[in-house]
Structure formats: structure tokens, C-alpha cells
């Protein structure tokens, strides 16, 4: 492996997808800056990636809910990364979110407010420089609200729309904005759930897709990891509301 002098900023470095993504970049010779809520937990991942690949891996403590700290954080991130990938997300519990305002707010803020504000700030800096890739991990759950997880879905829909607008604005600026929708992934978040094998990706597969799309070997601005999701979600989106509401998906 040879160092190639590029840096990845990975927001959410202790998640399974975040870890796999950082590893893929490190294997390709990138330097990596990992962030997470708890320093000791992120440091463990950083040490792992560095031992496995020999790459430079640094860590920074960052809580996606503490939006007031974002400016300070970006002030110390130097040099500006070449690519940023934000995998932060929290499924939460739909039924609890229906009863507890705080829980619902946490889900919305973690999946939408935090990632959108942070990526927005980075986008300003990337735009000023005239280069960079911004990858937001959204979700198929944001393609249409469903009874079983619409609080989470709505937040992801917000993120999808935000990224779409950002992409629109920065088109032609040299900055790329990408939306990755992983579909089902075998991670801690889905541990114990029954997942359909054809629709379920491994974290490494998601990471490979992120790398391929962000670094230009796979095309597309909005990408489903398993391609089968696109026709599936198109079909689900096109079900008329009067019918959809009775399906209780």
C-alpha cells in the first residue's frame, strides 16, 4: 500500500458501515479522520484500521446532536478533506417516537438536522476550494413514509431532499454531492431482524459502493447499493395514496 496524500473525513466512525468504509479508503492508501461520540470507541476503530492497513488514521470526538460545535470542529480539521462521508443515523423506535416527543426529536435531529447542517458547512468550504466529494447516507425509508418507521423515514426524506438541493446548487462547481441508499444492511442496527437475502447487503458491500461512486468508478448521483431497490422503490412510490394507506407496510 502506498499513501496517496488524500484524506477521507468519516462522520460516524463506530458504525458498521462507517468502519467498513474507512477501511476501504485506508486500503486504497487514503489518510482517514474518524469521528464519533465517544473517543475511546472511535480510537478502537482507528487503531484497528491503522493496524490492518498501515494508513494514518486520526480521530475526533463529535456528537451529531451538538450542532453548535460544528464550526469549531471544522476549524481544526486541516487540511480540508478530499471526501466526506456521513453515515450517522439512528433507527430509533417508531412506537416510542409516537408517544415521546423527545425520542421523535432525537430521531429527526440525528438523521436529518445534524448530518444536513454539517454537510452544508463542509459544502461551503468545498465550494470555495472548487473540489471534493460529499456523500450522505440516506435510506430507502425516505422514499415513502410507512406506518412502521415514518419518523425515521421522514428525517431521511429530509436528508435526501437536502442533498438533492445541494447537488443542484453545486452542479458545475467541481464539488460532487452523492446520496447513497443502502437498503437493508446486516449491521448492529438490524441485528436479530429477518432480512430478505436478495435485498440485504453486507457493510463491506455498502462501503465498496460508496468508494466506487464517490471516487468515480461507478456513475450516479443517487445510488441504491443493490440495484434491485430502484425498480422496487419506483413501484412502491407509484402506489396511489388511497390504496397505500390500506396496505400498512
Amino acid at each position: 500500500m502506498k499513501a496517496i496524500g488524500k484524506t477521507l473525513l468519516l462522520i460516524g466512525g463506530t458504525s458498521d458501515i462507517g468502519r467498513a468504509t474507512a477501511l476501504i479508503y485506508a486500503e486504497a492508501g487514503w489518510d482517514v479522520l474518524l469521528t464519533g461520540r465517544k473517543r475511546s470507541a472511535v480510537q478502537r476503530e482507528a487503531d484497528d484500521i491503522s493496524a490492518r492497513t498501515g494508513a494514518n488514521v486520526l480521530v475526533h470526538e463529535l456528537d451529531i446532536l451538538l450542532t453548535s460545535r460544528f464550526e469549531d470542529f471544522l476549524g481544526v480539521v486541516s487540511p480540508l478533506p478530499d471526501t466526506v462521508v456521513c453515515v450517522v443515523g439512528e433507527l430509533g423506535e417508531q412506537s416510542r417516537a409516537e408517544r415521546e416527543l423527545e425520542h421523535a426529536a432525537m430521531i429527526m435531529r440525528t438523521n436529518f438536522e445534524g448530518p444536513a447542517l454539517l454537510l452544508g458547512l463542509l459544502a461551503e468550504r468545498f465550494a470555495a476550494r472548487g473540489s471534493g466529494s460529499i456523500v450522505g447516507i440516506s435510506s430507502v425509508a425516505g422514499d415513502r413514509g410507512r406506518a412502521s418507521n415514518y419518523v425515521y423515514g421522514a428525517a431521511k426524506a429530509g436528508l435526501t431532499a437536502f442533498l438533492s438541493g445541494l447537488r443542484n446548487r453545486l452542479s458545475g462547481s467541481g464539488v460532487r454531492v452523492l446520496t447513497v441508499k443502502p437498503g437493508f444492511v446486516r449491521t448492529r442496527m438490524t441485528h436479530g431482524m429477518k432480512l430478505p437475502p436478495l435485498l440485504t447487503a453486507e457493510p463491506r458491500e455498502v462501503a465498496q459502493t460508496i468508494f466506487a461512486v464517490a471516487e468515480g468508478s461507478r456513475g450516479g448521483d443517487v445510488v441504491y447499493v443493490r440495484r434491485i431497490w430502484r425498480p422496487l422503490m419506483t413501484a412502491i412510490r407509484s402506489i396511489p395514496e388511497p390504496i397505500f394507506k390500506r396496505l400498512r407496510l
Partner: protein
Amino acid sequence: MEGWGRYPRHESQAIDCRLPGALAGTVAARAGLIGRGNGRSYGDAAIGEHATLMCRGLSRMRSFDPANATLTVEGGVMLSDILRSFVPRGYFPPVVPGTKFVTVGGMIASDVHGKNHHRDGGFGDHVSELKLVMAGGETLTCSPTRNSELFFATVGGMGMTGIIAEATFRLRPIESGWIAQKTMVAENLADALKALQQTEDATYSVAWIDSLSQGSSLGRSLIFAGEHATLDQAGGMPDAGRFAAKHAGSFSLPFDLPQWVLSKTSVAAFNELYFRAGVRKAAKTSLVHWDKYFFPLDSILEWNRLYGRRGFLQHQCVVPAEDALAVLSGILERFARSGKGSFLAVLKKLGGGSGLLSFPAPGYTLALDLPVTQEVFRLLDEIDELVVKAGGRLYLAKDARQSRHTFEAGYPRLAAFKELRKVTGADRHFSSRLAKRLGI
């Protein structure tokens, strides 16, 4: 819960552990506990008496120091991950067993031997330090010089001293990922032992035995000697690079095979073909990819299903070199006479082991696979008699059925091991089905 041989099967509560920080609390919380890596031990070693701590989530590497090729990892890191990361960087683990789907904790707890045991010892001989979580939850750092009694009880101790949270060991620099292999033919057991003696200088050596041949060709074998190919040797390779990853297409057995598939006839036919293929290659040196050389079985995932639902046993003994010929002949004869076919019959020369319960002892080790049937238990009891009489022992990582008598006769340092368990409180806390069965 069951081991790789799928026999025996026991109830045990599985407890997940993903964070090293949570280990202390989780371990201290209940007794009758044993650590489990990837469940590649054959019998009941990794089944907790009451509860089993699943260590695979402790899968992070901690650090690598290129200056002296020293790697520190958590106990649940898989050998396959180490190979994936380090072969392309020019390093190889000091010792590897016949499958790469094992954890570092499992390799230390079994003090696994590789094809280089005669030269390099067991995996435990390359561990410079380990962190052990004790019965009360406290972590102790052990090495050959620090808390050394506990260190040598943990190496080969089958998880019975505590949970291996972290370990540090040295990798071996290699010039390529290829193995220069020489095949030799031995017409009978005496020849095979001689050949293994003669290949003592080779880094790797092992013999595959045709377990069904009898009479004058009893023990006819192919002996495979290997070296890590040098830059020069591998430079002449036709395909791909020096460290080619080569992900051999792997497939899983989708269902259990019925038992007749492994009949005497089919095994005999397989053995004959395999032997002839070996004879054709004899005396030439060929370059073999590391994955194929060390882990031929891994390309068939879940091959343990080959033996059907009732599972199978592996019998692995080691006997001192002096009367190895007589004892191993006796074993092979009984085995061939019974007509129990074994795809896997492997013979190897071992050096000594350093742990109190390490399996390796100076001499020859023979390993045989057998499907579980009623008669097989009787046959193996008979064979154990021969092993005990010869002053030999059975490998705990493969064991599912040996008697206490056989075990106690084979492990002279057992008393010291038990004493250490008592002193550290491990005897009241860590216990597997194997420990229970053998009264450890």
C-alpha cells in the same frame, strides 16, 4: 450448541460481547462460563457448562509495529483477517492450523500446531504477551516472564484460565505468498516416518496417509514439504503477482449428505486417485498458493456437513518417537480392518509444547476423521488404550469422547494446571462441557 464435528450437542446460554470495556462486567456476572472463538474445535471445548461468551465481536486489531513485525490484536480477531491484511504486506503468521477460520483466542487456548511445529513450535511459543480477564473481571497482563505461571496455563489451557482479551505476537517476513512444495512418496508407514524425519529441515512438512491400505503398504503416504517461495522463485510465476490474493471460488454444502456417501468404497477410490496424483508430482517442486497449501478444506465452507446429521469425530493422538512405528501401525491396522473410511488421515512430526496442557509433545501425531456411529466409540476406546500404553495423549481441541483415564494418563502437568485454577479462582468460574467431562 455444538462444535465443528457437530457432536456432542449441549444447551448453553450464548452471551455476546462486542466491547472490550464490557468484558469485566460480563465475565464476572456468571459462573460456569467459557470463551468461544469461531467454534472450530471439534467437540465440547467451546461449549460453556452454563454460559458461553461469544468472543468474535472482539475483532479489532490494536497495533502493528513494522520495526519488529509485532502485531497486537483483540482475542476475537480471525486468522483469515490477519492473512488478508498482512500477506500482501509481506508477513505471514508464525503458526497456522489447517483452517483460517479460527480466532487468535482460540489458537492460543489450543496452542495450535502447524506444519512447522517441528521447527517453530506452537502458536503459543510466539506470543509475547496477553491480557487475560480473570474470574472477578480484573485483567492481568501475562507473558513468559510476567505472571508466567498463568501465561503457561493459558497457552493450551482451553479457555479454562479466563478470557483472552488481547494478544501480542510476531509475524514472519515472507518474500512471496507462494509455497514451494515438494512431494515425496512413502510406500509404508516406516518410510513415511523416515521421510518426515528427513524433512526436518523443511519449514513445513506433513504426510497424508491412505488410511485404508493394509498389509505391506499399511501407512503408504504422500509427504508434502514446503518453504515460503523466495522473490526469485515467485518472480518466475506465470500468473499474477507475488502476493496474489486469489479468492478461490468457495461453495457451501447446502444440505447434510446421507451416510452412505462416505462408504469404504468411495473413500478407497478417493484415496487411490489422490495417491496416484501425488506419485505423478513426486520429486518435482511446484509453487502452490498459500491458501491452497495451508487451507485446502476452507474452499468448501461447511464441509462438516459432509458427514451427515449425526456428526463426526476426529481422533488426534501424539506418541513418542521411539515406538511410534509399532504404535501407529497398531492404530492404522485396527482402523483399516474396521473399514471405517477417513478422507483425512494426517501424520506429522511434533516438537514439545510449552503450555501446561499443550497438546504437542516430541513424537508423531496422527489425526483421523470418523463419522459418529456406535461402533466407532468402541474402536476409539481400543485405540486410546494403545496411545496410553505408549505414553501418548489426545488433542483436547479435537476431543469429544476420551475418558478421564486416557486424559489423566496423557497430561502429566495436569496437577499444576488445576492448582493454578484454584489459586486464581478460575476453577469456580470457568468451565466448559469438556472440563466437566474430564474433571478439570
